């Protein structure tokens, strides 16, 4: 089975030797790129719900731009797609019941959207679930079923517990309905919206100012229309006593000898990098141990015979004495990817600490990460720059930061961890 040239799937260990009497940790970089959607391909239909926050704080430009963005999104749909619009404050209204996206329905939607005005408080949980219900009523088995939630506020009415809402997002995802979230301005809870999107198999977008609402919705709807492989999983088979965990925040499951990392849906030519941390047991010098890494997806795109058919990749490590371990070469690309991800994780942690008033804690997190990266950076220019950045940022994080800076920093790190660009868009293979 030959892989198509436009698909990439490769795995790269940072080092190949492990220590016999220490619990060695090694990192593996997996590079994945989805095949290109061919022009003759009939894209799977999409079934969207768009949920708009119309609480008082959305009044003015935010709600106006949001409505324009929804109109533009609907205009891109085909008659075999479906859409619905839900608006919520303390009361939830289905503004447009789920309907096939006929020309007539799309025209009618513009009229109905005009009736949406900002008022009241924020029943985010119920608004979102009503959107999911609109999608669920007409679930398209072969399509992409997704609820887009746009809000500028906190969930302060109804179901408000972030863990509970994220739990529902995961359950709905398991039943075919995914969720993406858009947070506008300073007052939404990015942890809640990030958790909903992560558990819901979709994406989170931070929108600093109202005019950017259109860009964010446009790119999310565009990605939804371009999906070529749904529910992509990275499967790692290894011995029971080898522990495997992703550094990137993807959901993970263990089944017997297999560890499964769920990457979500991938769009045409979308590139994703996943870093895994592998922890080894003790072993005798000379013995080899390995892991097999495979890609699967619901549509069989990455399976044998699929358009992105990819063979499983095999990794081998060997137990060797400390001297050999100390002298072994390192893969600089893997070290850089590992450094970037740990820096992103440290920044996210520092954001939370800074917001909670723990400025010294925020500084220490960044300092500790910079020191750890220095431990393996050697003369690598990229890693040295990263260390310098972390050092400079310590000053910023050691004093109170404004909410937009915190939101921006969280979003930048969140995107880095999920192979997305600064605006939250997926990245195409180069």
């Amino acid at each position, binding site marked *: 089975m030959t892989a198509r040239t436009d698909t990439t799937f490769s795995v790269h260990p940072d080092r190949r030797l492990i220590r016999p009497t220490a619990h060695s940790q090694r990192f593996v970089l997996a590079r994945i790129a989805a095949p290109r959607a061919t022009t003759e391909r009939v894209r799977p239909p999409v079934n969207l719900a768009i949920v708009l926050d119309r609480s008082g704080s959305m009044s003015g430009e935010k709600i106006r731009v949001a409505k324009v963005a929804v109109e533009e999104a609907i205009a891109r749909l085909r008659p075999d797609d479906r859409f619905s619009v839900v608006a919520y404050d*303390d*009361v*939830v209204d289905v503004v447009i019941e789920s309907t096939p996206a006929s020309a007539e329905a799309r025209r009618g939607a513009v009229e109905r959207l005009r009736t949406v005005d900002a008022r009241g408080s924020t*029943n985010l*949980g*119920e608004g979102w*679930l*009503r959107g*999911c*219900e609109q*999608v*669920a*009523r007409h*679930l398209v088995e072969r399509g992409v*079923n997704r609820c887009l939630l746009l809000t500028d506020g906190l969930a302060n*009415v*109804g*179901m408000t*517990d972030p*863990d*509970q809402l*994220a*739990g*529902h997002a*995961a*359950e*709905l*995802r*398991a*039943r*075919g*309905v995914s969720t993406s979230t858009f947070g506008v301005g300073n007052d939404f809870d990015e942890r809640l919206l990030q958790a909903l999107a992560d*558990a819901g198999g979709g994406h989170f977008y931070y929108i600093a100012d109202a005019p950017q609402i259109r860009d964010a919705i446009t790119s999310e709807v565009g990605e939804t229309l371009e999906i070529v492989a749904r529910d992509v999983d990275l*499967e790692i*088979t*290894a*011995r*029971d*006593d080898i522990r495997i965990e992703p550094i990137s925040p993807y*959901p993970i*499951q263990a*089944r*017997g*000898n*297999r560890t499964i990392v769920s990457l979500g849906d991938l769009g045409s030519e979308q590139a994703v990098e996943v870093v895994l941390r592998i922890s080894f047991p003790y072993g005798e010098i000379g013995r*080899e*141990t*390995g892991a*097999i890494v*495979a890609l*699967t997806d619901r549509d069989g795109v990455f*399976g*044998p015979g699929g358009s992105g058919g990819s063979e*499983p990749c*095999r990794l081998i490590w060997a137990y060797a004495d400390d001297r050999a371990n100390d002298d072994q070469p390192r893969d600089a690309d893997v070290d850089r990817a590992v450094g970037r991800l740990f820096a992103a994780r440290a920044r996210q942690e520092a954001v939370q600490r800074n917001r909670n008033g723990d400025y010294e804690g925020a500084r220490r997190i960044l300092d500790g990460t910079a020191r750890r990266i220095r431990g393996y950076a050697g003369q690598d220019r990229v890693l040295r720059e990263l260390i310098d950045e972390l050092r400079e940022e310590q000053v910023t994080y050691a004093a109170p930061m404004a909410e937009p800076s915190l939101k921006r920093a969280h979003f930048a790190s969140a995107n880095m961890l999920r192979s997305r660009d600064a605006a939250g868009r997926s990245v195409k293979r180069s």
Partner: protein
Amino acid sequence: MPDDERYSLTELADLAGVTPRTVRYYLAQGLLPAVGQMGPGSKYDSGHLARLRLIRRLQAEHLPLAEIRRRLEMLGDDEVRDLVGATEPDPPTDTALEYLRTLGGSFAARADTPQTSRSAPAPSLPSVAERPVAAPMLMRANMSLSEAPVDPGDATVRPSDRSQWERIVLVPDIELHIRRPLARAQNKQVDRLVTIARELLEEDRP
């Protein structure tokens, strides 16, 4: 798991944590199914891996090889995978729409009286991450309490504020946990399960 997953002898041995020699011995003893032509190019599949893991587990319980063979002979590949927890989790048995309906509290009541949502939050359901892999009884008997499985996808029973766990001691050291209340049909099934489990466990005890 791709069905075409193929391991070399060395890979298979490494993944199962045994030596290649042990694998050859088990093949010769008939504990593992033969793979056509034996040789350096032989390829083994995930069924072999699951069997090897089960053999190791049974050995850890100090079962003699003959007894292990007797048990393995009675099991198909899927059952072996079940026993070592290598199966796919059961897909949810309800649809997204049915799931949303079960949220009860705020969401079920919302159509006519949205205000009720403020005082009646929906019960929390276990997240997917907590969902245990479905496994047959023999496996459950081998698992620690923290892994005691429940199937939250069963449409006839919903976790609610009133539900509670019942512990049934099958034999010393092995318990069955059941979330009550159950439908009548399930109660009968549980009774049968307990009877069968006790018979099985008693006969296998040293």
